């Protein structure tokens, strides 16, 4: 009996660390149905597209961010307005997504499919677009002096059922942006993401609200497994950048299980620029036209 009690006690003691170390399981491939951030029902939120389709949804081919949104500093509002005019003219302004550059948070949340690889001391997040990935150091701190990079320096930790990721050090370029309207940012950009599993119905409703605003993409398929009844994944995020925004603002996006079990390749970059020579590579040329 004593031995049995000892074993039982030992088993409890050994189980305790396991519970303490237990982290939510975010494995699997996750998919979204829109590119946009969820509009906040109240409080400061992301910009809304002023260009609407006849059915009232955001016009994906005319991207005019609401440059009157009071969260924008005047210089940022001017850039958003300028981008809107370019888009209304049927042209494109520089966009990290279109030009095959790495996307920082929160803009990276626009990518339709992603996968998290959870390890003891780091999280690797794989994104289907242009084989991008991010690595998040768990329980680490940012360096005293961060070397700016396209995706920034990310550290994370678990708070119960939630993974919290803190990102700074996002590189600023003349064409830097953090949303589909070309909203710029400064070196002070600070993004906090909070990932947690949510019920299937909550994920479904959040995605449907997003579709109500943005509509589904017309340029590519939607990869959500609509029959899957398991948990969804929600990423709430907060953006701070006093140089760009008058106050911090937040939003969220919802993922559901992807319909693909093994994702394909979406290679964005096929350019003829010769990286080293700074010239155009010798591409094959036809001696006569194809028509």
């Amino acid at each position, binding site marked *: 009996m*004593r*031995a*049995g009690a*000892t*074993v039982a006690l*030992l*088993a409890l003691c*050994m189980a305790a660390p396991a519970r303490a170390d237990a982290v939510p399981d975010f*494995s699997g491939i996750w998919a979204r149905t829109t590119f946009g951030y969820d509009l906040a029902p109240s409080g400061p939120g992301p910009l809304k597209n002023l260009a609407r389709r006849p059915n009232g949804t955001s016009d994906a081919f005319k991207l005019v961010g609401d440059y009157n949104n009071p969260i924008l500093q005047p210089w940022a509002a001017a850039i958003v307005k300028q981008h809107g005019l*370019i888009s209304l003219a049927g*042209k*494109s*302004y*520089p*966009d990290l*997504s*279109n*030009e*095959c*550059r*790495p996307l920082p948070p929160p803009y990276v949340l626009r990518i339709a499919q992603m996968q998290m*690889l959870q*390890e*003891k001391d780091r999280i*690797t997040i*794989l994104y289907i677009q*242009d*084989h*991008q*990935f991010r690595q998040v150091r768990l329980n680490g701190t940012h360096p005293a002096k961060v*070397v700016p*990079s*396209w*995706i920034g320096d990310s550290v994370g930790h678990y708070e119960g059922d939630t993974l919290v990721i803190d990102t700074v050090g996002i590189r600023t370029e*003349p*064409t830097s942006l953090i949303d589909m309207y070309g909203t710029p940012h400064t070196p002070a950009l600070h993004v906090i993401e909070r990932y947690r599993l949510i019920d299937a119905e909550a994920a479904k409703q959040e995605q449907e609200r997003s579709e109500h605003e943005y509509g589904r993409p017309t*340029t590519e398929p939607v990869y959500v497994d609509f029959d899957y009844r398991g948990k969804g994944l929600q990423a709430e995020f907060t953006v701070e950048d006093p140089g760009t925004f008058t106050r911090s603002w937040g939003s969220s996006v919802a993922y559901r299980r992807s319909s693909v079990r*093994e994702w*394909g*390749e979406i*290679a*964005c*970059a*096929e*350019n*003829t*620029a*010769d*990286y*080293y*020579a700074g*010239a155009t*590579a*010798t*591409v*094959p040329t036809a001696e006569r036209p194809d028509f």
Partner: protein
Amino acid sequence: MRGTSTIIGLTLALGALPSDAAQPAAPDFSGVWARLTFGFERPASGQGPIGRYHNQSNVGGNFESPNLTPSAAAIVKQRSEILRSGRDYPNPSLNCWPMVSPYIFRVQEMQMLQKKDEVVFLFMQDHQVRRVRLNSTHPAKVTPSWYGDSVGHYEGDTLVVDTIGARIAREPVLDMYGSPYTDALHVIERYRLVDYEVAKAAQDKNIRDAGPVATEQAASVDEAYQGKGLQIEFTVEDKNVFKKPWSAVVTWRRAGGWVENVCAENAYEYYSGGLTDIPRADRPEF
């Protein structure tokens, strides 16, 4: 005493619980690995890669290699002539395309994330990701892709990766010598840890044979680290390009760091097919 035995048994049982991080018996390939050259090491015996033309720099591959089929030799020669003219032929490294194996071993830093059912490779250049399904088979009909379809399994201390189904781009490039490839390409890679001395000697010999890289690179080896290195022996089959299979080796040591290394910054607009309205200066800067 009985209680103690039970406790030991329980401890062993708990210790044997399977983990998603890696199969219990699998070798641990974690960490960041680096190499400092682009070239392959020749195998200990047997057919090796075609190598450089007369072992010279910047003249391309040895198009006179008897292992090349005539059509492949003509392509290697054409690429060599472009290099001799001071220009470059289209290739994945310069043009930011995903790289097929073994060409991808020219990327000088990589990580392996070993999961229960797959191994994910992260390559530093242009943040490339390659996936290998473990204990699986190739589909009956493979959809061609840049990286091809890769399956793998562990054989003791060795990870074996088998790849077919590489996409035939307009300008397929298999290695830094300019060899092309066709839809018959089949690559087998064998990964295993080797002692520090073995890894260092192999890297040093490779630098002596191939010469140091001429331009500054983002990659670095941690010279103070004296733990295991990683060695990949691989075999290439493509009957349309090579008369017989050939093999080579690449050796990695612990890296000194990992940086963002982005290749693609172009003004081509994916959806409209035109050029983006990029910012312009009102006056020249000079």
